[in-house]
């Protein structure tokens, strides 16, 4: 008689242990991520995650999971593409984005980045389509998303002297510190309304300034140069104190011709090409 009761208890406890380990891996895969929203279709829910649970202008590192609405499990073998679109009154355009790929070491999480170069004041206008293939079957999901305007200018879109439109976005430092900071920016060319490829082998000069300190600058900054392994531009940004900094930039093409931006002098206190930072 007794054993009748014991066995179910044992089974239940075994199950619950198994379940809890499952939960643990889920938690680990989403560590440091907060869900922004879901895009749904009849079969799947596309869960979108960022570090702070929202999209904002500039560089957004985005994690994605695809949940099977029937089995409540996460798809581990999908291949994805995505397309963010901004609906303007008279036209629509996209923005720079990466490919989406499975994160090494994780089973259900796919990753990529999107650089929103603009936002409406109320965050409206952007939508995101995700096209994916699971076991040879194609699906898609689309939904409107909210993109907040970042407090400081961490992305800028401009016309170069070569009559081409470019976008520069700040990736690093995410947590600026007093001292030498690794600075990383992305540089993209607007080929057409929907295509923003990475620009390679240009140079971006750097001159950080504090407007509140009579344009105080710091030494030991280096120009940002292209690195093929992450397709980004890298340099050293030194910050002598906390506060509001304007990172004055100048974009030079492979022939060292200035496409945008000016040198900072007593008269020119700010370059027409700049990013901002406050900490």
């Amino acid at each position, binding site marked *: 008689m007794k054993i009748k009761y014991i066995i179910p208890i044992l089974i239940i406890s075994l199950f619950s242990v198994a379940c809890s380990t499952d939960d643990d891996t889920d938690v680990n895969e989403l560590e440091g991520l907060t869900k922004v929203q879901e895009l749904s279709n009849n079969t799947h829910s596309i869960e979108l995650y960022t570090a702070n649970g929202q999209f904002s202008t500039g560089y957004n590192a985005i994690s994605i999971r695809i949940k099977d609405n029937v089995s409540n499990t996460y798809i581990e073998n999908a291949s994805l593409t995505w397309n963010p679109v901004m609906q303007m009154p008279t036209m629509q355009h996209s923005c720079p984005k990466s490919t989406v790929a499975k994160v090494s070491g994780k089973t259900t999480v796919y990753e990529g980045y999107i650089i929103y170069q603009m936002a409406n004041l109320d965050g409206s206008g952007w939508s995101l389509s995700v096209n994916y293939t699971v076991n040879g079957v194609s699906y898609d999901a689309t939904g409107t998303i909210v993109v907040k305007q970042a407090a400081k200018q961490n992305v800028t879109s401009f016309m170069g002297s070569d009559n081409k439109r470019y976008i520069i976005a700040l990736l690093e430092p995410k947590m600026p*510190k*007093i*001292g*030498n900071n690794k600075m990383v920016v992305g540089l993209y060319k607007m080929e057409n309304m929907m295509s923003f490829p990475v620009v390679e082998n240009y140079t971006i000069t750097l001159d950080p300034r*504090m407007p*509140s*300190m*009579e*344009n*105080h*600058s*710091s*030494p*030991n900054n280096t120009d940002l140069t292209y690195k093929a392994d992450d397709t980004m531009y890298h340099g050293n940004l*030194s910050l*002598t*104190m*906390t*506060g*509001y900094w304007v990172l004055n930039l100048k974009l030079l093409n492979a022939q060292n011709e200035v496409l945008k931006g000016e040198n900072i002098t007593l008269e020119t206190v700010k370059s027409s090409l700049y990013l901002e930072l*406050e*900490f």
Partner: protein
Amino acid sequence: MKKFIIFGVCVLSSILLNAQEPEYTTKKDTTKLSEITVLGRHTLSNYRQEKTLSSIDDYLEKSNKITMIKRGGYAWEASMNNMNSNQLSVTIDGMQIFGACTDKMDPITSYVDVSNLEKVTVQSGQEGTENGHCLGGGIDLQLPTPSFNGSGLKTTADLGYETNGNYKTAGMDMAYSGNTFYINADGIYRKSDNYDAGGNKEVLYSQFEKYNISLQSGYKLNENESLDANVIYDRATDVGYPALPMDVSLAEALIASVSHNYQNDSTFIKSLETKLYFNTITHIMDDSKRPIVPIRMDMPGWSDTYGFYSKATIKKNNHNMLVNLNGFYNKSLAEMTMYPNNPNESPMFMYTWPDIRTLYTGLYVKDAIAINALETLSASIRMGFHQNKIAKAAGVESLQIFYPNITDSKNRLLTSFSGNYQLKKELFDVALGVGYGERAPTVSEGYGFYLFNSFENFDYIGNPNLKNEKALEANFNANFHKNNLHLGVETSYFHIMNYIIGTINPALSTMTIGANGVKMYGALAHASIFDVYLNASYQLSKPFSINGSLGYNYGTGSNNKPLPFIKPFSYLTEINYATIRFNAALQLEGNGNQSQYSSFYGEDETPGYAVINANFGNVFYNHTNKIVLKYGVENLLDTNYSSYADWNNIPRQGRNFYINLSYILP
């Protein structure tokens, strides 16, 4: 009853002692030799000074070799042999203590008052390394030595008033000394409004207010041993610095020590003093009183020091030895927060002293050997280990902007030695000395981060890679006495290697709004400093004497530019009249034109000046009490002037009448 009798006897004997105490005359001692200047109010019970309540700064300034660099009416910085406080060792009774202000607004001398001290020992050059490494010399502000003389209770009250700046001083000192126990308590309060320069021109932001209290107590364990404890608390508020862009809202120090004393005439070691100490300083700069500033900022600083020393004296045959083992650990932290005029922007923050820890341990040995009755040969050596460590990671990272390869710590070995020969005869005495010394860079020189020097109008960046500053030194003194005539000459020469000084880095952008540029601490390959003083005095008759002094200083660097803060030609002459109960003196002092000024280091040519001072003193006896009255006038002609040592040429005090009254209860 028995106690009462003992107490009575003590009181009586102290009265007798007091009555017999000869009254020394008030005299600005122009013939003072470089070696030791004795000042202070406790030994000053004989009231030798012209102003009983003058500050330590005023006292120090009377030494030939010392000039006070002034940034206002308070907290002057001592310089000796034309070297500033970075190159000196300034200690309080052998205790290391470091100011908490990155802009030198709080020299150590500002944290003690005359009421705390028995005397000040000033030793020039390598003679001054007993308590620490230095090039220019050592200043030790000495606390009273334990006194178990059973003299009972003694109370002194002092009041002072000066017309210029409406400067009020009040002090009180109570001392009880029994045969096995003594206790001293004293307090002093000072408050001054803005002073007026010559011609009734008010110098704005020259006010100050401070008080200082101290307690010292000792217990005699047995015939040879005693335990002592001393606490000093000093607090200055509302201190203006007319020469600087900021004032100080608080400068506070707590200085505490316990010591064990052993004394025995019959053993090999005659005395052994061991002291453990601790002091903490808080310094808050403030610009809230300044109506117009480019940017509002807070600049607090803290300095804590823990240390010990153990000092033994040994006498054997003709050897007279002093051994001093000491060590300290200091934490210096200062920060700056600037508030942008746009309130939507974040405050701007940096560490100006990024929590620098300094650890030092060293040994000093001095031996004076009496060759014969007339000749003495002495030699001293100090060796020590010195370590700086940047405790804040943010500090290392901020300095790596300028020095990408630095690590968080730096070790140094410091060596100093000196030798001295002295010959004393009836008519004359001569002394010849040589020395070699090294010092480590100060926290500001090594690790300062955008420290603004308002004199040169440059921001300064420290340099952790600086080499030790070194000096070779030679000095010579000679005195001649005959009848009532005394003549003296004292001179010293320093050849300094790696002379630490800032050099302009044109590539750097200023931090301070309005600054001319940024300097980084570096070093001149070498520099030379020479000084010579001639002293003479003549006793005309019993009450009348005259004395005079002439000084010449010279300093130049390996870049063939004059060094900054080199004293121009200086002179002082005085006529004295002194009897037992009254004294008077008339004084003329001045500097020549500063022709060797260093425009390269931000100096301008300060014109010569001369001022006339007069002082008087009376002593009254009233039964068992004594009243000492000191009064006089400084800058009688109300000359408007500044000296080479006045920061940004702020003018000195104009005419000032003063009166000091001391009331001594047995």
